[in-house]
């Protein structure tokens, strides 16, 4: 592996990793606030992709212009699911929570397959194969470059929202101490709805960003969800920065594994990372800091 290929692999890894980061941020946000693992997480990414596909096909919108639509729709759906389903099992045995969310996941895959069939779908745009050439002959695919910077900006906006606004402070307060937040007059059930909505909306944005050059099938979200689980464990469950950096790290690791082992076995590399973290540092890179 010479220097050019090395750099190119890192770039490719960061590009994929930025999407992992978005998905993992959503997962870790929900876990940090509600201590519930969203087993339906990948399906919200899938839904984001299908909403973009639908808006592109029916309304003729550019895939990037569909991002607000998919974010808003999935946000509303997430808040609804939190209010109607997840809220009722928050105090149950974890097995009940997992079964409920698996049910949501199965139902969503089924509905999408029912209405859009299991046939792979893809969006074709003029710029899908356009490439920028950078220093050292590095090649930047235009859709993936746009996806990378959009993912960075989305993460930054969400981070600033959590750190700088009153509502964000309320979310962080609930994640640090639910009862304390309740005593301070924070509407915890509103924060739960908001957090679940935000968590799945940011994931749907990740899905929409993928659409210009990614084929979608109803189960497309599952490998992303599995990777996101690895990422949140790596970056400490419930830690925002951890999920962000973990996503980029896993992206690069997978890119190198894909180079050496071939594209379709790269998930083995994530699994190896997963087992190594569990072996040497089960609390993740960021230790035991509490709260988002």
């Amino acid at each position, binding site marked *: 592996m010479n220097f050019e290929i090395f750099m190119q692999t890192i770039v490719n890894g960061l590009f994929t990793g930025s999407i992992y980061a978005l998905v993992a941020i959503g997962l870790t946000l929900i876990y940090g606030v509600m201590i519930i*693992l969203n*087993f339906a997480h990948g399906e919200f990414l899938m839904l984001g992709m299908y909403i973009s596909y639908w808006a592109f096909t029916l309304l003729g919108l550019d895939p990037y212009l569909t991002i607000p639509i998919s974010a808003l729709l999935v946000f509303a759906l997430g808040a609804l699911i939190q209010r109607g*389903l997840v809220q*009722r*099992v928050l105090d*149950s*045995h*974890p*097995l*009940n929570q*997992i*079964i*409920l969310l*698996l*049910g*949501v*996941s*199965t*139902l*969503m*895959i*089924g*509905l*999408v*397959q*029912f*209405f859009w*069939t*299991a046939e792979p779908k893809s969006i074709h745009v003029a710029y899908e194969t356009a490439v920028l050439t950078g220093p050292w002959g590095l090649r930047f695919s235009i859709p993936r470059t746009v996806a990378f910077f959009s993912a960075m900006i989305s993460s930054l906006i969400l981070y600033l929202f959590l750190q700088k606004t009153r509502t964000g402070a309320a979310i962080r307060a609930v994640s640090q101490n639910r009862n304390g937040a309740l005593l301070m007059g924070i509407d915890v059930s509103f924060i739960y709805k908001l957090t679940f909505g935000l968590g799945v909306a940011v994931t749907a944005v990740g899905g929409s960003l993928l659409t210009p050059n990614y084929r979608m099938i*109803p*189960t497309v979200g*599952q*490998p992303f969800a*599995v990777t996101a*689980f*690895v990422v949140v*464990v790596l970056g400490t*469950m419930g830690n925002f920065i951890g999920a962000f950096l973990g996503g980029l790290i896993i992206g690069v690791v997978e890119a190198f594994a894909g180079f050496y082992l071939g594209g*379709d*076995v790269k*998930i*083995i590399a994530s*699994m190896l990372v*997963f*087992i190594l973290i*569990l*072996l040497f540092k*089960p609390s993740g890179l960021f230790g035991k800091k509490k709260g988002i």
Partner: protein
Amino acid sequence: METPIKTSGASPYRWLQGILLDWDRTQLLVSFAVLVLIALTPLFIKSPYYMGIVILTTLYIFTGISWNIVAGFSGQLLIAHISFLAFGAYTTIVLYNTYGVTPWIGIFVGGFVAALLGSVVAFITLRYGLKMDYFALFTIALMVALKTLFLKWDFVGGAIGMGLSLSEPGFGKMIFDSKVPYLYIALGLTCIGILIQYRIYHSKMGKYFMAIREDEAAAAALGVNTSLYNTLALVIGAAMAGVGGGFYVMYVTYVEPPQVFDLGLNVEIMMAAPIIGGLGSLAGPVLGGILNKPLAELIRGALSGGRSGSTLIVYGSFLILAILFMPRGVTGVLHGFYLKWRRRITGANQED
């Protein structure tokens, strides 16, 4: 549990009363009654399509029991239980196709191989202290990794998978012209499964499983070897799932990685029956099982003639509705009626 009852002398119904006044034995009786009913279905059902549904219904009861022991009794968050079924299925078909070993031995070797995988999973998760959410994630991650491995492994057919090399039907090859023999094999397995489940429930081991489920730390503090019993639950459940997988592959005659390493099939084949019937109860997998496949087929047929995706819609809704409205399942509801009935019969006011 013996209950003082107002009977005089040796009534011919005494043994029946002895069963009916004990909830666990009643559940066992109900389970076997259901199996007898299933065994009689070939008298009425001639269409191979409906027979196929009956066979899968029976198999799903068996696989449901295997998951019920791990998740229901010992409370482990074992999500991707289907990996064990896949190991059993692959072992059986490889032994038959490549080495000509009869499936009658093959499916039990499959169970053994699945049990080995189960002990490896138990070893890794206990060694690294993976509990609850981490354990659930690990089982899913393992399933995805195994799927990738099997897709690449040419010896077991890679991405194409393996089809049963069909030859002349024969008892020794577990290949039959008619579907009825398959039904009786599935029924035999399920009978054994129900008895194993009942024995475990009433053994010391079963009590330890349930102690771990309720509070693992407290169980450990009271001297229960939680590592040993977590491992045992996992290995027993895995072995049964492996045997179920062996039968599954003989019945459906092919196996491929995306089919068996799949959370959708996992929900259908492992989780739906115990969850609908009542996770952790004795009759749960049986009562849930007879609702599971037939109801799913019925609804699927009603939903625009079985369009793709409708199975998933049905199972997703099953899980959500069961957790929200019937967390103790059909058995839980029946138990309520049963207690009322027993109170009237015995005049005593006691709980199980």
